[in-house]
């Protein structure tokens, strides 16, 4: 490789990005040194195994990636806003839509969901941490290493440019000779291993660590949705791991799994990708369903309608999600029989999803609804997601799909599913659980302002795409001539995109405003919540619960409040907690370097860094780490401090 190819050159925007990356990476260490915060950062955050802090780091990283992916989206909308636009060239446009897709799904939606899981699940089931706290930290740092590796492709070596689905033969070394798709394969591999570990961790946590008395059918709905999501993660992610390994072998080691020569098959990539990819859609959507269930029940002041049918429909969705993948490539050579089978299974998914929609509506019926920001997002979700779902059924009809396939109609459909289905949910969950983590609510006025900007602009951005798609505009085209007549609707979509950006800026400003001025909560239960996380203090103490609560029914905390009986007595015992460790973050850094060397096929450093990773794992096997105990006196001191603060207010 020539050194002048190492850095991406020739684009003013990329030079600007390089400058900003250098400035930021200089500013962070300088600021840390100036404010003497290195030690604080290391002991409180980088080495932490506390599920709440790991969750916060996941969400911070997700917000960061939301803005990276959002800038990609704005650039795409700006490029297509007018006919024959020359803002971006074709190559740059390809890179941007590829990174937009990968970042939004894998480095924004996934970590945001996993972050909320981390913060909420142990609290909701009355546990003091996850089953494997150290592994949890490893998961986070692997995700972070993958995300950072993927992002530096922008300035070093060039971004992947074969679409977020990276179909062969386009993604093969023959047609994509730059290192861009190596970044794709390796960065996703590293982050994917992290996700798989999270899946195992939370599966064990939910099955093994629930508070006494909380049987499976007494779990809060968010916990149920996360349990099922993690089952899907454990069974779907190995397929991605294998597919990406085959991609790396094909691109860098000369094998021909996805080439037509020597008995390989290019379409096999699309097949394997979607065997993982479709369950992945449900991995990001099911926890969102759980979040909405919690929020709707809380703010309708009613118990969730149809608890059992909610659970059954989620299990049904989890099974069906594995038998629909071929609907992503109906038009690529299947016979009639294959398309018919996958059409029917796809339409069948609408049934359990419909059951859930009706359950939410019945929960709202005759409820005393309070229109808080999280509730507004949940209410907006129902109709908008239904539009996404109905257009999904349209796309599910294989014969009609020949018309819709690869048009903007499809793009509009999946944005109508994923934005209300995931983005609104994580924002709603963010507003909802924010006071639990930080001890104060986000400002409602600013929250609602951001909500209206986001909700209106979302529809202005994406509804025109349905019409553009039906008029024949294909996805991923970087420009078009004025005679096609696509100009006006694309301009409208651009206006919507700017509105969305303003909405998200207000959201972030709201965080800043609330940190400074929002009144502090006093009792740990600002929303009059139903599940166990609201029964402890805010911000949550290190050990979560001074005494593990006893559960006897669904929404036990709600009924305990109504009946005035506490869930736990106040006899303290020493609490066993895990120790912090620097190994996970070091592992993450090593994986980052290993990935970087692999991308550029620098084998010797790659082998060396991998050897260190193995050595660290071996060291961990022999490490004696029994954790530490928090003494009764310290618990008493902490608990009294929380109560003292309350009296002062």
């Amino acid at each position: 490789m020539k050194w002048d190819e190492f850095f991406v050159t020739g684009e003013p925007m990329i030079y600007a990005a390089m400058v900003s990356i250098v400035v930021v990476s200089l500013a962070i260490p300088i600021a840390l040194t100036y404010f003497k915060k290195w030690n604080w950062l290391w002991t409180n955050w980088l080495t932490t195994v506390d599920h709440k802090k790991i969750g916060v780091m996941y969400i911070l990283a997700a917000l960061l990636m939301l803005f990276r992916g959002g800038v990609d989206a704005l650039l795409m909308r700006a490029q297509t806003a007018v006919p024959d636009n020359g803002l971006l060239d074709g190559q740059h446009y390809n890179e941007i839509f590829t990174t937009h897709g990968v970042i939004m799904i894998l480095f924004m939606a996934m970590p945001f969901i996993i972050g909320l899981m981390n913060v909420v699940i142990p609290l909701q089931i009355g546990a003091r941490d996850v089953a494997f706290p150290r592994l949890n930290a490893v998961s986070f740092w692997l995700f972070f290493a993958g995300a950072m590796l993927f992002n530096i492709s922008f300035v070093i070596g060039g971004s992947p440019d074969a679409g977020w689905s990276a179909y062969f033969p386009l993604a093969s070394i023959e047609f994509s000779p730059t290192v861009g798709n190596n970044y794709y394969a390796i960065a996703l591999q590293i982050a994917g291993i992290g996700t798989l570990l999270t899946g195992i961790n939370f599966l064990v946590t939910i099955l093994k660590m629930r508070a006494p008395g909380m049987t499976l059918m007494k779990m809060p709905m968010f916990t149920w949705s996360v349990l099922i999501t993690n089952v899907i993660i454990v069974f779907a992610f190995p397929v991605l791991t294998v597919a990406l390994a085959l991609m790396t072998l094909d691109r860098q080691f000369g094998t021909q799994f996805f080439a037509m020569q020597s008995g390989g098959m290019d379409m096999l990539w699309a097949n394997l990708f979607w065997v993982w990819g479709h369950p992945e859609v449900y991995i990001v959507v099911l926890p969102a369903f759980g979040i909405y269930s919690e929020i709707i029940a809380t703010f309708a002041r009613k118990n969730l309608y149809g608890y059992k049918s909610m659970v059954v429909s989620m299990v049904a969705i989890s099974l069906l999600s594995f038998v629909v993948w071929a609907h992503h490539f109906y038009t690529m050579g299947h016979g009639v029989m294959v398309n018919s089978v996958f059409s029917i299974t796809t339409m069948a998914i609408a049934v359990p999803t419909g059951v859930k929609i009706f359950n939410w509506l019945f929960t709202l019926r005759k409820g005393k609804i309070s229109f808080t920001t999280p509730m507004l997002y949940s209410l907006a979700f129902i109709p908008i997601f239904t539009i996404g779902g109905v257009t999904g059924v349209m796309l599910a009809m294989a014969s009609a799909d020949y018309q819709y396939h690869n048009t903007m109609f499809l793009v509009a459909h999946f944005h109508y599913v994923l934005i209300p289905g995931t983005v609104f949910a994580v924002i709603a969950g963010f507003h909802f659980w924010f006071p639990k983590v930080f001890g104060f609510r986000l400002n409602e006025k600013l929250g609602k302002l951001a909500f209206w900007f986001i909700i209106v602009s979302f529809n202005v951005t994406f509804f025109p795409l349905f019409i553009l798609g039906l008029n024949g505009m294909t996805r991923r085209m970087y420009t078009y001539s004025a005679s096609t007549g696509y100009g006006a609707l694309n301009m409208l979509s651009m206006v919507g995109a700017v509105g969305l950006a303003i909405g998200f800026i207000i959201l972030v400003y709201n965080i800043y405003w609330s940190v400074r001025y929002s009144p502090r909560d006093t009792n740990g239960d600002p929303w009059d919540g139903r599940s166990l996380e609201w029964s402890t203090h805010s911000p949550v103490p290190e050990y979560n619960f001074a005494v593990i609560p006893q559960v006897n029914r669904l929404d036990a905390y709600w009924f305990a409040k109504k009946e005035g009986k506490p869930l736990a007595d106040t006899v303290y015992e020493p609490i066993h907690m895990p120790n912090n460790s620097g190994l996970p973050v070091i592992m993450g850094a090593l994986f980052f370097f290993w990935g970087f060397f692999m991308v550029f096929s620098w084998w010797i450093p790659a082998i060396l860094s991998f050897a260190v990773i193995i050595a660290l794992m071996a060291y961990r096997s022999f490490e004696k780490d029994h954790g530490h105990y928090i003494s009764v006196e310290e618990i008493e001191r902490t608990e009294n401090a929380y109560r003292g603060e309350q009296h002062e207010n």
Partner: protein
Amino acid sequence: MMKQLFPAQHVMGFLFSLLLSLIALVVVWFDLSFTAGITILIVTALVQAGLQLFLFMHVKENAESKTLYLNILYALFVGLVTIFGTLFAMHWGYMVR
């Protein structure tokens, strides 16, 4: 006393798994047709996997064997769907050859 201490079940299981391996070797030793060979291999592999799982990996003796069975069932479902679904979508039902 000796009878209780002697792990008869496991010894029998071990011998049986050796026997299964020997049967599988037949495919290499004798000149069988492809269909006969692959049938023998699939049958012995399935029995062998079951034997290992239930006898030696203590699925039965676990306190939560119900969860484990459910897990195995789900894994089988996903595995079989992936393999046969891929064959169905990309080979048997594929128009373009």
